[in-house]
């Protein structure tokens, strides 16, 4: 637990001082939303929202492990007498917090640019957003560690993330559509089922697989 908190604190301190990920992700997200709104995607608002979040995430997460390669920090972390999964969990929580911050800005712009009001069941929307974001971050953090050493990581991460995240995208877009149209949590139960299974799968897979990704 102490190791986990130390890793989390390290990642948040780096992000707080360097401010490398969150601002660039947020600006990219705003640009994508603006481009979508300007080119008449207002009728496909939920799709635009989730594609924006996925693309912004894939930009940020591609870099999230890369900074560890400077002065070979990742090897030092792997050598530390802790369970390597903690490196993943710590980085994942830090990425989740960054992503939620980016999402706050994105949602604010989204309501304005796409003329969306607060839905009748805000809780349902919050659940869909949270599950979707958690799924993106869990998968993206694992992939981020995998592509960190690759020369072409900025291209590779979206190429790997987007197809794997298709179930999440389909379910999240449909659920958001329904909730924004005023339907309740009961109407989106199968979509929430897909989102929860996705989060479960990519929450569990790294526990077994992360070690193989970082081990020399």
């Amino acid at each position, binding site marked *: 637990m102490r190791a986990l908190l130390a890793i989390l604190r390290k990642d948040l301190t780096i992000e707080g001082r360097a401010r490398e990920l969150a601002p660039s992700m947020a600006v990219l997200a705003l640009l994508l939303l603006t481009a979508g709104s300007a080119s008449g995607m207002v009728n496909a608002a939920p799709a635009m929202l989730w594609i924006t979040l996925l693309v912004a995430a894939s930009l940020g997460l591609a870099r999230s492990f890369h900074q560890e390669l400077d002065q070979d920090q990742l090897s030092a972390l792997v050598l530390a007498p802790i369970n390597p999964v903690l490196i993943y969990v710590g980085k994942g929580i830090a990425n989740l917090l960054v992503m939620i911050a980016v999402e706050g800005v994105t949602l604010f712009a989204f309501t304005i640019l796409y003329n969306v009001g607060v839905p009748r069941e805000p809780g349902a929307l919050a659940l869909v957003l949270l599950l979707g974001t958690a799924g993106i971050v869990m998968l993206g953090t694992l992939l981020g560690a*995998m592509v960190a050493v*690759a020369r072409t990581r900025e291209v590779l991460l979206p190429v*790997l993330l987007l197809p*794997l995240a298709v*179930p999440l995208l389909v379910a999240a877009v449909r659920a958001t559509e329904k909730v924004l149209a005023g339907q309740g949590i009961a109407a989106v139960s199968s979509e929430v089922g897909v989102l929860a299974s996705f989060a479960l799968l990519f929450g569990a897979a790294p526990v077994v*697989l992360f070690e193989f990704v970082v081990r020399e």
Partner: protein
Amino acid sequence: MILPVLAALLVATGVFLALRVAPVEAFQGEPYRILYIHVPSVVASYVAFTVTFVASVLYLWKRERRFDRVAYASAEIGQVFLTMVLLTGPIWGKPVWGTWWTWDARLTTALILWFIFAGYLMVRAWSGAQGTRTAAVIAIIGFLDIPLIHWSARLLRTLHPRPAVFRPEGPDLPSSMLLILMVNMAAFLLMYLALLRVRLGQERLRDRLLEERAL
């Protein structure tokens, strides 16, 4: 040597049977004959990716190079068959459904699988020796993702026919068609094995070359 020859002969026989001997389908007419390529390609590609999945698990577990070679070779061939599926499908769909594409569960799964393994092959091409474990992880999570892709796509509507051959009650095809389909399936699987052996030979050779150069 016998395997490629046998595969080639059986594929030629299968094509001849499909085009010349198989009866015309009552509703679809001639276009249905693409079935004899489409379905065996699907089966061959899914077999190939299953082999990749199993070999990837074994590679991470046992850390033996030979499992990685099998995973790589099989993924590449699976991708070729899957490309064939995605090309023959729309060609068949256009005259019969009136559309090239529809977001059906099976079509979606096949297309997304193609993208996942495109990423797999890109990792293998760009990450060198370090990429083998990364690639194995992608193959594993990609394979585990398939049920979810299928499930999510079922939220969309469908035109694709229900499975006619692989279903619990047994095949629902007239025997004249079923037999020819089986010949083609055997031919494609044999072709898969023949190609797999060639690719494995090449990879073994490459490993040996790299070893000797390192000495």
